[in-house]
């Protein structure tokens, strides 16, 4: 029996096991659903007490998205969601199986949070047990990788990824196919693959959730990429602050190795690919690819000037492919369904779907996946349910601490790399933080600048000193001691830091200031020293 057939059989066996149960209770076991382990225990205890172990299966699952109303429990095949479940609800939930659902806990079936989304990357998230490779196999997992490695040539894969129009989901939106082709063509005996899971943007948890929910999808994407570019060693650089993601990745790597999906002779072919984890250590700048490489090499995570790009001269001087978690997670889908299927979603230049972490002053905070081109208004007001407690929307900040703040008048802008950039923001990795009328923009921007200042590696002068200078200027505004000169200096410094900094962190650090100077200038003016009052400039 070939490896391919063996995996097929394993998947079928698992499916038979799953099919043997009349009901499945999937409990979200993501970081965001607190006490999920107790809920699982309570459900199992209840089922055992009623002797229903053969009929009802309780499964640990990945993130279901609506973290604001967690812990969530999904009942299959009914596709009923229960919200804010506690262990005490176990009896009622089990009793209601096959009958009327528990109204008290029921999430409305037509909630736009679910109906407006198009889950592709997240399709299996919350539907399978992330700690069980058989669950992933049964859901069709690894079929793309096996097919790619046993039946496709690397150029064929490069062509499909290129034609799909997929762009890097880590922030800059570089065409993935182009990057892969560069690495594939780069001269060098040894090539490396890196998965950037150093999701450092405060307010963003897309990668954490994908890693916690479908770690095998990321491994599968990496495997396909490695085969396509000719890399035999891969690294996943993941934040140490994500212990659950780390644990599930470790487990996933072990299980993939045991099933000969990683290691020597993948799928019985002569292709070798091993994956190792590297833990980040709390430095936002390591999300920048060259800094990440420095960090894997055991050094201070300071970025290197580009060019040379990692695709030509990366880890230990070898051609290196770096993509982020969500980018890799898209690959198995593209291989399975084809470039045309992927390219049919999204906008002309930004194809596919994008996962966003919707947080801040919003009703339905959580993880969402929408096609590119959806408007911010739809995301915030329909999927997100709008602003709670009767407050008014003020701005949505996309792209993490170095993204821009987009005001209400641009809520109808469609989400794409181009449109966000035109609005003075960035796609970033997908953080989306909603602010309402209780937020003061100058305070918020000072918070972002403090973040950038503290996370600046200190290597280049404009970012090291410039962010600190901008931060003190913003402090002057907060203290109502700023002058017109300070406003001018703020603009000069932002331009300097943006234009001359060495890496993306510095180059984008002024974005929050620049976007709020554009859209919320009055808030700066309101916080200047009273020109008729005593001259305060000397006060530092």
């Amino acid at each position, binding site marked *: 029996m070939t490896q391919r057939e063996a995996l097929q059989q394993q998947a079928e066996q698992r499916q038979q096991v799953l099919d043997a149960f009349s009901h499945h209770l999937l409990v979200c076991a993501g*970081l*965001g659903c*607190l006490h999920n382990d107790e809920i699982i225990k309570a459900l199992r205890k209840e089922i055992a007490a009623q002797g229903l172990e053969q009929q009802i299966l309780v499964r640990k699952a990945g993130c279901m998205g609506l*973290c*604001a109303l*967690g812990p969530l429990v999904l009942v299959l095949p009914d596709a009923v969601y229960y919200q804010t479940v506690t262990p005490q609800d176990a009896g009622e939930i089990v009793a209601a199986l096959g009958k009327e659902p528990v109204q008290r806990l029921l999430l409305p079936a037509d909630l736009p949070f679910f109906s407006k989304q198009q889950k592709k990357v997240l399709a299996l998230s919350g539907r399978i047990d992330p700690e069980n490779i058989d669950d992933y196999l049964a859901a069709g997992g690894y079929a793309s990788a096996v097919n790619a490695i046993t039946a496709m040539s690397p150029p064929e894969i490069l062509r499909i990824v290129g034609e799909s129009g997929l762009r890097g989901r880590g922030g800059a939106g570089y065409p993935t196919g182009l990057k892969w082709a560069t690495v594939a063509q780069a001269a060098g005996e040894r090539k490396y693959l890196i998965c950037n899971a150093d*999701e*450092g*943007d*405060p*307010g*963003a*948890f897309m990668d*954490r*959730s994908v890693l916690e929910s479908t770690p095998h999808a990321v491994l599968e994407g990496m495997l396909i990429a490695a085969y396509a570019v000719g890399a035999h060693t891969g690294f996943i650089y993941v*934040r*140490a*602050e*994500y212990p659950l993601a780390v644990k599930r990745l470790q487990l996933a790597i072990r299980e993939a190795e045991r099933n000969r999906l990683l290691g020597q002779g993948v799928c019985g072919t002569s292709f070798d690919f091993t994956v190792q984890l*590297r*833990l*980040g*250590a*709390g*430095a*936002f700048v390591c999300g920048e690819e060259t800094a990440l490489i420095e*960090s*894997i*090499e*055991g*050094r*201070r*995570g300071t970025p290197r000037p580009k060019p040379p790009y990692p695709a030509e001269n990366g880890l230990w001087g070898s051609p290196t492919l770096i993509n982020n978690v969500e980018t890799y997670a898209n690959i198995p889908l593209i291989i399975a369904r084809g470039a045309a299927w992927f390219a049919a979603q999204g906008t002309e230049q930004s194809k596919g779907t994008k996962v966003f*972490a919707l*947080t*801040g*002053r919003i009703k339905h*905070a*959580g*993880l969402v996946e929408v096609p590119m081109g959806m408007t911010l208004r739809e995301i915030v007001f329909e999927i997100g349910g709008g602003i709670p407690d009767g407050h008014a929307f003020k701005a949505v*900040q996309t792209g*993490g*601490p170095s993204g821009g703040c987009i005001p209400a008048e641009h809520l109808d802008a469609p989400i794409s790399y181009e449109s966000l950039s035109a609005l003075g923001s960035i796609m970033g990795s997908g*953080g989306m*933080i909603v*602010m309402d009328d209780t*937020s003061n923009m100058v305070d*918020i921007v000072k*918070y*972002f600048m403090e*973040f950038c200042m503290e*996370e600046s*590696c200190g290597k280049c002068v404009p970012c090291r000193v410039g962010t600190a200078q901008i931060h003190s200027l913003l402090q002057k505004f907060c203290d109502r001691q700023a002058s017109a000169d300070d406003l001018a200096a703020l603009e000069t410094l932002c331009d300097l830091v943006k234009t001359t900094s060495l890496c993306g962190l510095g180059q984008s650090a002024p974005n929050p200031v620049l976007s709020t100077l554009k859209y919320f200038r009055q808030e700066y003016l309101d916080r200047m020293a009273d020109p008729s009052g005593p001259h305060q400039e000397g006060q530092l």
Partner: protein
Amino acid sequence: MPTPPSDLHLQDKRWETIDRVMRRHDFRQDALIETLHAAQDAFGYLDADTLRHIAARLKTPPSKVYGVVTFYNHFKTKPKGEHTLVVCTGTACHVKGNDRVLAWMEEHYQLKPGDTTTDNRISLLEVRCVGACALAPVVIADGSIIAKKSLAESTAMIREWLNDAA
């Protein structure tokens, strides 16, 4: 050359785990960060003797080791208190008021992020986003999450926890 660390320190069983990590990387210099993780997991923090030993084993210049240790927020060169309160200062938690939790901690317990009480009982730490933004604001007391609470609620819970802990 750097002086070898004291033997007493090395007799600690925990060094076996750390040595295993270094061996897995053939004692290459690029194992530094992985080794520091292992050492901090084992000892709770990285003291001078630990760093000396790691530098010697990985044949890495001391200044390079210290440069790495001080670059990354995660590495601590001082022991933590017996109990830790972690305040998430990610954007979502900031927007929802964790800055005021920090101010409250300073006002009521004279603790700033990174500080440990003089009796070594409690440490206050801040982290840049634990990634549980939908639960904002998030405070973690000895590993258990306090989430989605108002300032009054969360400070009351912290006070209770501190009283139990201290």
